[in-house]
């Protein structure tokens, strides 16, 4: 690997100061970034490791009914800590990658990268989460801006993600077995004021809400409500693993399964 420096700040303030340099790049759990560096697809001069910042770790419940997850909290920790309070999120976190990847990868890293096939963007958009950074709060509906694109500014760090806890929810992932990313993943969450449906893995624009399904499920939360609804194949990802039509079809299948399994 090429030579670079690595710093391990202990506080958010130290990390923000370190990231002010042009050539610095934040490093979460590294499960995407380290392979990216090995392939020379990125080459920052300095990496600022966020894993040693204790104020960015852990899971708690807010008095507004949100699950608050520190940006540097690993997937394994979320899977454990949310098992009772938010089983839909726990199930999503507990099936990302493999066990060793889940022990390193972080929620902040996943959302900052916004891979079009990653699982966490579906949970954030599917719950209408609030993404808290070192400088502001961003609504999930404003945060995701296309494949690998987010509203984050240079050097901005996700310090916490607040997921409103739904009445019931579920995430269904059609696994791409080689990468363990979602070929198509659908997160469904039912709230007192309506249902949200977020789809990952399918669109060339990254994670998106399937509003037609949201309306139908808000009227009646059962798989049968989705009958006759479909997503157009236009703009869906086509690759060796699946055509746009195949992915569009899977969205309906995964959504029905998620509604049937929601708890």
């Amino acid at each position: 690997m090429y030579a670079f420096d690595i710093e391990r700040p202990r506080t958010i303030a130290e990390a923000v100061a370190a990231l002010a340099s042009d050539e610095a790049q934040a490093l979460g759990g590294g499960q995407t970034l380290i392979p990216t560096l090995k392939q020379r697809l990125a080459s920052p001069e300095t990496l600022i490791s966020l894993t040693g910042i204790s104020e960015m770790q852990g899971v708690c419940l807010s008095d507004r009914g949100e699950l608050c997850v520190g940006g540097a909290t690993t997937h394994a920790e979320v899977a454990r800590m949310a098992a009772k309070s938010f089983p839909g999120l726990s199930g999503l976190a507990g099936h990302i990658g493999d066990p060793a990847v889940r022990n390193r990868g972080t929620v902040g890293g996943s959302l900052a990268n916004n891979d079009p096939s990653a699982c966490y963007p579906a949970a954030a958009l599917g719950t209408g989460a609030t993404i808290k950074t070192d400088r502001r709060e961003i609504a999930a509906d404003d945060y995701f801006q296309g494949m690998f694109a987010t509203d984050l500014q240079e050097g901005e760090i996700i310090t916490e993600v607040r997921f409103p806890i739904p009445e019931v929810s579920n995430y269904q992932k059609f696994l791409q077995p080689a990468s363990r990313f979602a070929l198509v993943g659908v997160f469904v969450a039912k709230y007192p004021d309506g249902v949200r449906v977020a789809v990952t893995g399918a669109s060339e624009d990254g994670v998106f809400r399937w509003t037609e399904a949201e309306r139908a499920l808000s009227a009646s939360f059962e798989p049968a409500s989705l009958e006759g609804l479909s997503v157009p194949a236009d703009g869906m990802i086509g690759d060796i693993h699946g055509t746009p039509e195949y992915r569009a079809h899977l969205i309906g299948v995964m959504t029905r399964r998620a509604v049937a399994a929601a708890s």
Partner: protein
Amino acid sequence: MTVNGKSVSGTIEGRTLLADFLRTDLRLTGTHIGCDTSQCGACLVHVNGMAVKSCTMFAVEADGAEVVTIEGMANTDGSLGVIQQAFQDHHGLQCGFCTPGMVMSAAALLKENPKPTEAEVREYLEGNICRCTGYHNIVKAILAASGQDVVLAAE
């Protein structure tokens, strides 16, 4: 950091991966580098009790941590540990390249879930690849190491 109970230190570059520090600086070559892309799990070690792929973590990030590698899995008298012995008894290895990672993964699983089902073992091993495709006997060995009967249906 502490490796297999012994305190170790070294001056390394920022880019040094934990796997390289273990293998090159400490000469603990039981930890294997297979794919180098965090797919295969041959480099799996424990950091503060948790399974991680040492090819996808920088050594400086393990500063102050307790690391356990395959070299730390034998009994103190040098005989094979329970999981290692089960791999031998049940022919859980063919070429042996993936074995260190498999044993470390198995140890992490059994700590979390002392009596896993066959399905749970297979699911837990999804990040460990065996190119000899000897999974069946690996699963058998792990079930045996957990003290359970090892009658598996043929696949």
